């Protein structure tokens, strides 16, 4: 028995330590910080001051009365919902297309669509920096100029004329292009795991490709659909790195291009460095994360997927 304990500690200890240090403790610490007036990372001075719900009251107040903060809330809702639809259905369409095409072509396209996900964030944002650049050098501008749709370069993400739609379009487009590949690989591998006899049997029964999609592929991958839906919603709610650079680089407006997660990050690290307020705002994300996560775990029946180890050694 003693040997078992030591080896368990050996295998699991380091990972548990890291998980505790970087997830569990920060989770509680973050909630604690939201009850302190911490600013400018002055840990020594503020960490011992307890100010109750003041940060939450401030947050509530600015959400109610500050139009910029209203913009953050609206942008978050629009961004998450629209990108979610694009990601899930775009991923589904890509998965279907690559499932029905020639294997080599399918592999090439999947590699291409996975590329944005793998690309360093700085490079990926750089691509769109060029693309949406507000001068004539920007690819979009130069195309539109060539087509005579505009007569001078436009700042799609910045110009009040196009706000909020321009900024929304950019952040949704940029994140959507990364996001669709998630649905693509999940749906594709789900389709691939369907026994091919079923497809052939349906063909023998006289089914067309659209009938096969409707009657075989889609009904058999309902679980995956829910899975992708839930997981994409999570990550869209929490994602901020790409948008952070687009804001920093002045590609999109800092008000209408800012989601709640980015607001938390910028408030804590770049703008007002008001960690107390940022922590309060982040608590809402944590609560949504935990609640939705637990619901998803139960709904998706992950428990069933966990195999029991055999034997007693």
């Amino acid at each position, binding site marked *: 028995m003693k040997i078992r304990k030591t080896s368990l500690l050996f295998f699991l200890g*380091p990972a548990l330590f890291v998980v505790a240090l970087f997830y569990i403790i920060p989770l509680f610490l973050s909630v604690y910080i939201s009850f302190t007036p911490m600013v400018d990372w002055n840990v020594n001075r503020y960490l011992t001051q307890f100010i109750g719900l003041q940060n939450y009251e401030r947050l509530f107040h600015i959400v109610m009365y500050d139009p910029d903060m209203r913009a953050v809330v609206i942008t978050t809702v629009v961004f998450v919902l629209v990108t979610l639809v694009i990601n899930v259905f775009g991923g589904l369409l890509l998965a279907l297309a690559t499932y*029905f095409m020639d294997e080599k072509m399918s592999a090439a396209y999947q590699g291409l669509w996975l590329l944005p996900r793998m*690309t360093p964030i700085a490079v990926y944002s750089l691509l769109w920096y060029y693309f949406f650049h507000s001068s004539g050098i920007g690819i979009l501008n130069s195309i539109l100029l060539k087509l005579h749709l505009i007569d001078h370069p436009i700042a799609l993400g910045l110009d009040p004329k196009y706000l909020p739609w321009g900024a929304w379009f950019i952040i949704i487009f940029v994140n959507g292009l990364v996001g669709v590949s998630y649905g693509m690989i999940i749906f594709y591998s789900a389709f691939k795991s369907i026994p091919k006899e079923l497809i052939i049997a349906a063909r023998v029964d006289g089914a067309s490709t659209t009938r096969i999609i409707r009657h075989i592929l889609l009904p058999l991958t309902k679980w995956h659909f829910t899975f992708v839906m839930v997981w994409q919603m999570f990550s869209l709610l929490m994602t901020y790195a790409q948008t952070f650079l687009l804001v920093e680089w002045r590609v999109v407006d800092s008000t209408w291009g800012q989601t709640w997660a980015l607001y938390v990050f910028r408030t804590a690290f770049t703008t007002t460095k008001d960690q107390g307020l940022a922590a309060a705002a982040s608590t809402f994300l944590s609560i949504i994360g935990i609640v939705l996560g637990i619901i998803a*775990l139960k709904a998706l029946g992950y428990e069933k997927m966990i195999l029991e180890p055999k034997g007693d050694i």
Partner: protein
Amino acid sequence: MMPETTDVETINRRRMNLALGIVVLIASIPILVTYFILMASSFANQMITGSMVGQLTFTLKNWILFFEGKLTVASAAVYSTWDILRYIFNTFIVAFGVMLVTTALATMAGYACSRMKFKGRKFLIQLLILLHAFPGVSLIIAVYALYIFSKGPIPSQWWTLYAFIYVIVARAALEIPMDIWIMKGFFDKVPWEVEWSALIDGASRIKVWKDIILPLVKPGIAAVAIFSFIAGWGALIYVLVFLPPTEKTLATYIAGLLAGGSLEVVHLPVVAAAGTLYLLPTLIFFSFVRRYMLQTSLSGIKG
């Protein structure tokens, strides 16, 4: 016998193939165009955009300027060549560190989750999925507070080293829950008999794991290692937050160049050269592991 085709051969697929190929190609234009323009512009005298294709010439000047630490032809060097090389090296150190920490911990914990019975096992495995999806942004404030806290007792000449170690472990922590899942999946596939027979022969659990099981999950280790390397290589936020401003990586170097959106101070093709250099290792490593994306996808990859 299983049919070898995925579909009936008598159905004419050429037309469908062609149609799908064209449709997806059109959808892929933004990706193709933007990546191409980035890479090609790093070799051109100015950014390639539709209006000036005629005036483009091939040049290595951007790459030379980049390595000289210059941002435009006219200006003096802002960085030294030494700085640039150090930034590249820093990027590599972070990537390599994240890879080592992630792979080691995920391989060990993945084994424990797959093969060992212990109290709270199911809870831990489910917790890992939750953690994987957990908002990094709501942790980073506290993680940074912990960093400031913990660096207090350390003599200030060690702070840079400590910052590197901290950023590596903190960034690795984001990958670990997922990669434990991936490794667990690979361990689940190793037949139990292999392990039992070795254990019955009297070997210790750790020895069996090291000598017998690990060689069987090499593909998994390779996949996790490369995925985590790519993640560490691309790290931006953690590097930006934790490393002192003097210790840049390619990510923070590029982020810094364009900050504020000003065009005046930097010649864009030089940034394109930096970006292309930064992209290359990712492209190479990614080509190795692309096929694993499918294998590991159902355990969920960061979306």
